[in-house]
Every structure is written in C-alpha cells, then in structure tokens.
C-alpha cells in the first residue's frame, strides 16, 4: 500500500496538467451540466413561444416588477461569494466556514420570501399560469428555478454540517466543493432568467 501511495504521489508532478482540479465528484457535474442543458432548452422554448406573439409577451412582461428580480439577483450573487469564502475556509481550515454557508442559506431564504411576495402579488392581480402563454412560461421557469433554490438550501445545510467538523475526509471535502458548484449553478441560471423574463423586450 505504501509503495502504491508513493508511486501515486511521485506520478502527480509528471501529469500534463497537475494543477487542474475538478471541484466535486464527476457525478455532480453530470447533474449540473444536465440541468444547465435542460434550462437552455427551456430558455429557447420560451423565446420561440415569444416569437409567436411578441406584443402579448411584451405587454405581459410590463406587469412584472424588475425590482424583485434585481434584489433576487443581488441576493444570489452575494450568497455565491459567501459560498466561495466558505469553501476556501473549509479547505484551508481557517475561519468560520459554517457561518458563510449559513449566510448563503439566509440569502436563499430571503430569495424565497421575495418569491412568495411576488407570486402572491401576481395572484392578487389575477395573473396565474392560466392567464396567457407568457405567464405560463413565467411561472414554470421561475417555479422550476425556485425548486432548485430549495434543493440548494438543503445541500447548504449539509455543507454547514460538514464545515463544523474538525477533520473532513476527502469525500466530504468533495461534497462541499460539489455542493458549492450546485449553488453557483442556481445563481448562474437566475442570471439568465432575470433579464430574459423581466428585461429583454
């Protein structure tokens, strides 16, 4: 075993790109890229639907409040920075890693609270997925994204748990890295969704 270990470590500097590193497990990336592909298809489906009735989509879009989208984007961007700092804290075993993840969870919860307010505001004006095609897309796209925010919050809770540990196994560090990338993907998808639904006309 020790011979194997020695040969493994001595082989590392000879690798073509020794510093390149995949954050998290391969399986996480299959999931992340798959999700990104699904959302890309949904973005294109939305825009294709829009070409059918641009005036309806533009007038419906003006019923949305871009301020909600702006604040939600800023919340997710800030949560992403907190997650970056948390991962660095865990990997370098320095600073309060768990607190960064808790901060990111708080941002996710604030995002969710704003979504509740936004959806109820739309419902109170009689705007539902059945109103027209635009609102069907709006609720499906933002709802599916919100589901990912909820999943991400659960992942962040597990990351907080690991960050509290003194000693992490390589697998646990990989979970923290992969979970962080999942959360960044949630941020990344919203970065496209916000201008697509609220701003581009």
């Amino acid at each position: 075993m020790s011979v194997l270990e020695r040969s493994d470590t001595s082989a590392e500097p000879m690798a073509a790109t020794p510093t390149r590193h995949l954050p998290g497990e391969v399986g996480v990336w299959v999931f992340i890229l798959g999700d990104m592909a699904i959302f890309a298809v949904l973005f294109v489906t939305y825009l294709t639907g829009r070409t059918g009735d641009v005036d309806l989509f533009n007038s419906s879009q003006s019923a949305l409040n871009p301020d909600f989208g702006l604040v939600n984007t800023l919340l997710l961007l800030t949560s992403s920075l907190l997650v970056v700092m948390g991962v660095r804290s865990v990997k370098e075993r320095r600073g309060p890693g768990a607190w960064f993840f808790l901060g990111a969870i708080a941002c996710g919860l604030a995002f969710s609270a704003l979504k509740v307010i936004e959806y109820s505001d739309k419902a109170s004006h009689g705007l539902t997925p059945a109103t027209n095609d635009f609102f069907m897309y709006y609720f499906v796209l933002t709802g599916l994204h919100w589901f990912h925010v909820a999943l991400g919050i659960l992942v962040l809770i597990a990351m907080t748990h690991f960050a509290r540990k003194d000693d992490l196994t390589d697998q646990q560090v990989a979970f923290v890295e992969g979970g962080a990338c999942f959360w960044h993907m949630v941020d990344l998808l919203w970065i496209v969704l916000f201008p697509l639904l609220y701003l581009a006309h």
Partner: protein
Amino acid sequence: MVDIIYLARTRSTLVWAALVAATIGTWWLGVHSLPGLEDVGGGVGAFVIFVAMIKVRFVAIHFMEIGNAPLALRLIVELYCVALLSVISILLLVT
C-alpha cells in the same frame, strides 16, 4: 475577523463587485428607456442578454472554478455560453 478579511481577499470578491455593478447597470437599462434607444427594438434586450452571458461565464470560471478545471469541462461551459448567447440573441433580434 482577521480570518474573514483573509478569506475575502480573493479575486472572487472583485468578481462579485463587478457582477453586482453589471446587474444594477443592466437592470437600470432594462427599466429606463433611454432617449433614442426606443427604435433599437430587440437591441437593448440583446445587449442585456450579452452582459448576462458574460456574467454567467464569470460565475462559471471564478466561482465554480471552471478556469482551473479539466479542459474538457471548460470547453463544454465556454461552448454553452457561446451557443446560448447566439441562439437567444437571434431569437430576440428577429422579433
């Protein structure tokens, strides 16, 4: 506190500041119709999407550490950004 300052002193913090600035800028552009820009039609929308895709790339490269990930993964993500930007821009501009 010293640890927090240490952890914040990364390129990611600068990237975050740039992303926040770009977000506020494009929100402002999307909400306010600038005089003379009304005729551009889908042009403003396409510009806002262009900035969004640059933001996506920044999040992927710096936050998701794609910049330092195996080249195959980086290539997939770069192609994703270019392909999505192209298709979205075309669909916005043809209408």
